């Protein structure tokens, strides 16, 4: 096996184990002895596995190949989630499969509410931390391994030149990880301070900052903490910051110039996002108002918050919106399917890709009348290369196919069509709360183990990109065919 992959996996496990020290210390401080034991056992297991893997990965290869990169992307999430799920299992709250399912839902920033919410604070803190770590991993992989494996679907187009070219070397990963950690921590601390200023308690503030910036959104299911107006505004800012193209901040930090952040407002992807948010908010608010759910101002503020929250695939809720009408949930589902901006932590299909597809379809309409016409697609003054357009078209088919196949598989659990659809889209777009649109936590917990594992796979596919998974399947298939049995 590729030694660089082993080394990187060892580091990921150590990082996961290291972060568990925080809830470990917290539970120790508060004298929650059962949780202390659970975290201690989990940290030891992580330490052992991490050290072994790093030991096996000494003198690694220079760089990752496409297939090794895809393999790392895929295995990394599983390994991280398994070690991250051990505390739930050792704590005795969940079975192993439930623990892994819950852990994967946190690490992939999906945020399915499976855990009983009156679990002790240390476990809840670990859930928030694992979402935060998941968000960090998304950014790290996005700027290191992902461009080499599946960056051809538009990711490389929006990246700074220094990131999209060259091999994936250990040195590059080291350098990038530190820089991203700086930006990510800075934004999180800023979020925490704003939450504190808005009047939240310390514990709530920390958790909310962690789940907002990571687009995990899974802290409390029934909006138990008091959401004052300022908390909502802070949450909105955090969600939008996480749903934006992070490379803008990157460049601002790199060049010490704020013009890159200012460019965000001129970015057409952001404008389209704003337009979509306005349109969806308008439709939902109108429906909620006409349906007698809220007064006009409440309808607008509630729909705006939830449209932004689901649009950035965060899923955090300012109000228990499960009682809303199916029409409103359908629109939230649509915007979650579209997802946030390219280069962000959020999931979904991504707005840039939709933008390219729409422009490309308009061009095709022209070509129906003028078959020999050469039409260029220009986004923010840059011509999108034909290759990228073609690949995004292919990606749309893959995305749709993956969804259709998953619907078929998950329908075998005995759920009805609506529930199956909710679950599939929730997993694929990392918007966990959507799973609860027509299900409750108990029903999710009662799902067969294979369904939970399949959902976990789907959440990971949602993060690593379906193409990376297909690359792996293709690689495995070719490997099997070419092997001399």
């Amino acid at each position, binding site marked *: 096996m590729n030694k660089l992959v082993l080394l990187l996996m060892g580091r990921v496990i150590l990082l996961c184990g290291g972060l568990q020290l925080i809830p470990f210390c917290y539970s120790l401080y508060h004298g929650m002895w059962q949780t202390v034991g659970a975290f201690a056992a989990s940290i030891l297991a992580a330490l052992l596995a991490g050290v072994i893997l790093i030991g096996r990965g000494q003198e690694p290869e220079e760089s990752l190949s496409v297939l090794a990169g895809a393999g790392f992307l895929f295995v990394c999430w599983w390994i991280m989630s398994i070690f991250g799920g051990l505390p739930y299992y050792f704590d005795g709250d969940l079975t192993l499969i439930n623990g892994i399912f819950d852990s994967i839902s946190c690490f992939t920033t999906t945020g399915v509410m499976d855990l009983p919410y009156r679990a002790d604070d240390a476990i809840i803190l670990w859930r928030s931390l694992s979402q935060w770590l998941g968000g960090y991993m998304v950014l790290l992989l996005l700027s290191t391994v992902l461009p080499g494996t599946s960056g051809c679907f538009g990711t490389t187009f929006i990246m700074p030149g220094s990131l999209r070219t060259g091999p994936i070397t250990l040195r590059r990963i080291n350098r990038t990880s530190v820089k991203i950690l700086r930006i990510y921590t800075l934004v999180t601390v800023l979020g925490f301070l704003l939450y504190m200023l808005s009047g939240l308690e310390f514990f709530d503030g920390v958790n909310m900052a962690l789940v907002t910036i990571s687009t995990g959104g899974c802290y409390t299911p029934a909006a138990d903490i008091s959401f004052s107006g300022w908390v909502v505004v802070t949450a909105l800012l955090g969600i939008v910051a996480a749903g934006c193209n992070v490379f803008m901040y990157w460049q601002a930090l790199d060049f010490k110039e704020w013009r890159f952040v200012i460019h965000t407002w001129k970015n057409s992807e952001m404008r389209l996002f704003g337009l979509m948010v306005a349109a969806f908010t308008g439709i939902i608010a109108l429906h909620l108002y006409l349906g007698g759910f809220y007064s006009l101002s409440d309808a607008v503020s509630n729909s705006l918050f939830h449209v932004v929250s689901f649009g950035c695939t965060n899923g955090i809720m300012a109000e228990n919106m499960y009682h809303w009408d*199916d029409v409103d949930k359908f629109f939230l589902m649509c915007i979650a399917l579209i997802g946030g901006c390219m280069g962000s932590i959020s999931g979904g299909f991504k707005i840039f890709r939709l933008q390219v597809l729409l422009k490309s*379809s308009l061009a095709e*309409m022209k*070509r129906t*009348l003028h078959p020999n016409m050469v039409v260029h697609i220009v986004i923010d003054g840059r011509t999108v290369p034909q290759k990228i357009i073609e690949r995004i078209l*292919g990606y749309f088919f893959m995305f749709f196919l993956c969804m259709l196949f998953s619907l078929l598989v998950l329908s075998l659990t005995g*759920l009805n069509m609506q529930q199956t659809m909710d679950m599939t889209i929730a997993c694929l777009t990392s918007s966990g709360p959507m799973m609860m649109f027509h299900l409750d936590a108990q029903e999710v917990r009662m799902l067969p183990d294979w369904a939970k594992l399949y959902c976990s796979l789907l959440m990971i596919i949602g993060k690593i990109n379906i193409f990376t998974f297909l690359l792996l399947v293709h690689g495995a298939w070719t490997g099997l065919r070419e092997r001399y049995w």
Partner: protein
Amino acid sequence: MNLKVIAYVLSQLQFAVTLSLGVPFVMALYWGEACAMDFAGTMLISLGVGVALSNYGELEHDSLTIREGIAVTGIAWFIIPLLASLPFLAGHYLNPIDSIFEGVSGLTCTGASVIKDLDAVPRSIILWRSITHWVGGLGIIVIYIAMFPQAGSGAAKMFNAEGAGPTEMRVVPRMKSTANALLLMYVFFSVILTTLLLLCGTSLFDAVNLAMSAIATGGFATTNGSAADFHSLSVELVLIIFMLIGGGNFGLYFLAYKKGYKYIIRDTEFRVYLAIYGVITLLVALNLYDAMGWQPGEALRGAAFQISSIMTTTGLSTYNFDEWPAFSQFCIILVMLMGGCGGSTSGGMKVSRVIILWKMVGTIIQEKLHPNSIARVTMESQSQSSTVVYRVARFFFLYVMIALLAACAFNFDGLPVVDSILLGLSCMGNAGVAFGAAYTFYDLPDVTKLVCCLCMIIGRLEIFTFLAMLQPGFWKRNSNW
């Protein structure tokens, strides 16, 4: 664009429609039904429109431009369904919106019916519904090109605008000969199916109507219970085979007729089509056996009929599949989305497009792993141009998007989420089946019905023709392209 040429061609089409209205008129007279006068009135209106268009129109040149070709086909697919709906309206069997829905559903071969009780409707009206299927099945334009002498070199533009697959397939070099070949096969299979149904013990009326409905992959039946009312295994088997034939490429059948059956067996699209049908039928049968506790034979029979009916976008039914488990329903949606082969009478995406998209993903993987290689999509050992491949991909994107937009409208009109999405896909694919609240179409709200009609026409015209007509400048007279 020359409006006179368009008017002239449309007038010819109008005369053809008048001619086809003559059949139920004569039969209504023969059966002594009062609705004969409704047909007579409709014929007069149709004739009047035809004469008016003919007086205005003039065939100034033999060849049509691309715009004129698209305009003729597009306008024809909006005007003719309106005329086709007049007999339903004149006899007060349906209200105006329902009549339009029935007319559009008939001509686009969707087969979604809003007539509550077929027993209360005269037989000539039922016959007219089936005729609309048969005329719309192969395509109004194809039949026009085959039957009228003045089609000229502009025929190709109209033929392409009507669309029946990702690539233009000509079994013989000339467009008129191609249309003749397709029509020949179409008539041949219709006659054979009618004969076989008669041999299976159905009445002549049922045999003729079912034959027209099945071979055109429409879905209108002669009784309220659709194909289930016959309670006959032989009828179901014959229908399965001929629905599958209807979902195959008619050009391919002509080639096989001329050059031997090996052409059919070697055709990738046809093989994939049959393979998908076989696999999905087995899966659904297993699911029905497992989840519903059906007997194996019954499960296989039900699955075989329903999947063939929906895969070919016919829509005849023997069971209430709305009560089937979610897995079977998703299988139904999968085949409904896929549809039959290119060059067939069926709707949906078409199997050839799905194959092209699948191979396109393969080329992307190939190019990623071997960056210097040039990977091409091939069909029948022929490399497909990237223009065709990516047009197919864009078609897929627009297909899904339009279905979703329609679903939004249905949703707002009061339908549940899943039912709306499936209704959108069903109308775009001209399948004529739906689930849940939309299972019986006559209960749908009026706005939903109108949106359904629009989707059916967009689906039948395969999107681009319709969208091209929406472009600013398309209708300008002073541009020559």
